[in-house]
């Protein structure tokens, strides 16, 4: 069992959790992920790591309530325990002194992006952060990102805060010399950033979280096409070259269980299952 040491609501429906998992905390690195399962009936869900505290023996994840499992996770309190937590999984992000690193994150993925931005900063890079959300009230980790970025831009889909959309990146990419770009967030965000950096030849790393089951290379649910080759995001990734990823296929595969997810959610909302 893995205890929830801290739970903090960052904005409505987005929670930060610190789980007690000492062995994982010692090993896990930015870019890696964990798989957790709430209880005996639960599904296994992958969550990208947003931090680790070796002294406290905790790992941090941030989770958006979008379906049954994430909603159930959101209903747990500090002191509650979940049944399973497996990690570290996947390969860590490559941290080196590249020069200037552009870190773009959207939605809940701003939290794991922060963990990476911090590492890039500590490795001596100049970090330009771009964080986004659907709307101002959904924006997370702004001050945390400010602490580790040399510059920080904010963008929202509806323009309620900062830039409206990511179009402003076009000018930024023209004006500045960027040595590497990192994009994390919804598939459309990663796709947009990859398309914008492509003409400038900036190596762009995207962090993919397709549907997964075991997370250790056994099932192939997470297969993605990268440069015409099939890769497993769980063991070959989750980071891939954004200029090579078949995002259309990824989007179709992410919707594979949409009807079942809806059914499960309704079932849960109607109290079909107690916690």
């Amino acid at each position, binding site marked *: 069992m893995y205890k929830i040491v801290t739970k903090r609501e960052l904005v409505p429906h987005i929670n930060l959790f610190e789980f007690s998992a000492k062995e994982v905390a010692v090993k896990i690195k930015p870019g890696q992920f964990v798989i957790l399962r709430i209880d005996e009936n639960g599904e*296994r869900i992958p969550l990208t790591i947003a931090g680790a505290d070796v002294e406290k023996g905790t790992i941090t994840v941030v989770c958006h309530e979008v379906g049954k499992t994430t909603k159930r996770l959101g209903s747990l309190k500090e002191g509650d325990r979940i049944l399973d937590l497996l990690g570290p999984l996947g390969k860590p992000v490559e941290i080196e002194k590249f020069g200037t690193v552009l870190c773009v994150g959207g939605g809940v993925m701003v939290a794991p992006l922060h963990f990476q931005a911090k590492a890039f900063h500590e490795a001596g890079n100049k970090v330009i952060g771009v964080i986004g959300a659907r709307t101002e009230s959904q924006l997370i980790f702004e001050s945390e990102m400010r602490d580790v970025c040399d510059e920080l831009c904010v963008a929202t889909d509806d323009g309620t805060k900062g830039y409206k959309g990511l179009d402003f990146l076009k000018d930024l990419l023209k004006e500045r010399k960027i040595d590497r770009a990192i994009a994390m967030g919804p598939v459309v965000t990663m796709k947009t950033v990859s398309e914008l950096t492509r003409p400038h030849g900036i190596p762009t790393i995207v962090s993919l979280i397709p549907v997964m089951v075991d997370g250790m290379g056994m099932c192939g649910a997470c297969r993605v096409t990268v440069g015409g080759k099939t890769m497993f995001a769980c063991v070959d990734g989750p980071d891939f070259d954004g200029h090579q990823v078949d995002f259309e296929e990824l989007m179709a595969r992410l919707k594979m269980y949409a009807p079942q997810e809806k059914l499960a959610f309704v079932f849960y909302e109607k109290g079909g299952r107690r916690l």
Partner: protein
Amino acid sequence: MSKPKPKIRKEVVPMPKQNPKERIHNFNEVALGYTEEQAVAEAERCLQCAYPSSCIKGCPVEVDVTAFIKLIRERKFDEAIKKVKEKNSLPAICGRVCPQEEQCQANCVMGKVGDPISIGRLERFVADWERERGYEIPQKPAAIGKRVAVVGAGPAGLTAAADLTKLGYEVVVFEALHKPGGVLVYGIPEFRLPKKIVGAEAEYIEKLGVTIKMNAMIGKLYTVKELLEQFDAVFIGTGAGLPLFMRIPGENLCGIYSANEFLIRVNLMKTYAFPEYDTPIYVGEKVAVIGGGNVAMDSARCALRLGAKEVKIVYRRSREEMPARAEEIKNAEEEGVVFEFLTNPKGFIGNERGWVKAMECIRMRLGEPDASGRRRPVPIEGSEFTMDVDNVVIAIGRTPNPMIQQTTEGLQVTRWGTIVVDKNGKTSIEGVYAGGDIVTGEATVISAMGAGKKAAKAIHEYLMKK
């Protein structure tokens, strides 16, 4: 006048099974097991050949078959199971999933005049008899004061762990999944091997004194080298759990699964109880399962139970070359699975939403035997055709899990990714042993158990000298 010798019954005592019409609507066990009377009647057919009889020689863990069958005849069921457990720590599992027809039963003398003795069913009977009454836990031996780490809680790892703990070692098993059992929990379906039985046998091994640590993926959480700092020896039994795909166009369309994914969702995650259990699955109306092994049969039978209207097994050779057990092929046929022999997929066609809607196939004919001894399938030019499908399961085999090999410097590995060992299971690193599918490639539960046993013995010899 001496009593006339009772006539020996040549036919096996049949085991009751769930009716096919009913069983395709549930995941309950298909074979229901012998009653006491049936077990004794079957045991009475045994000729009690002199030791070591051919059945014992056919068993990878050398269960004393004649002795335990004699005890069943005498209705000493408690002694019979003890006799089995001297060699086999997972009898309820082996009684169900071992290919007895190729092992203990293959050279049964009765088999020359009639049906061989159904050793598997008898083993299952005594194991179930004991489990229903509660396990007797043998007394713990004196502690040796040495520790062994076992990587993987599948058949090889659990067997090695049980044997080592019985010798007095402190044993910790590291399992990456959330349940012990390996392929027994993620691969073999409930209707062939109920998971409560795997759970009970794993629990028995824990009661012997073994610690099983879940969610611990060696290679990620600890390396083998790190384990060697804490343990005196390491046994690697990580199995062959990686799915093979066909590498043909359209394979990543929605609705196409590896057999591993399909079965993990069904067995480990219990998707058949969705939405009480959270994990979803997609099952179409027209399902094609590619492959001819037990995993293909299992996938096809799961698809039927999950509501598919039509399930086809698409196999590139003919019935004779199918690697699945005859019993499993029969079960699948009884349940209505259709076989498309001498057929191979060439590609998948998707709809506008990225879902599979058809499969391009080609007919095959059999040519000369290949390295496996089976006749090689050769495509018949111009025989291409399209098969309408909305769900595909690819069951063409599994390869070794590469995690340990990739993260253990100095560990000798073959070009197939299996770990190189000597005849006792010793690897190229001192104190590190391996066995099961990670050494042989995909094989059987019992051969993995045999390898676990052999390695446990070798580890004991090594640690006694150390």
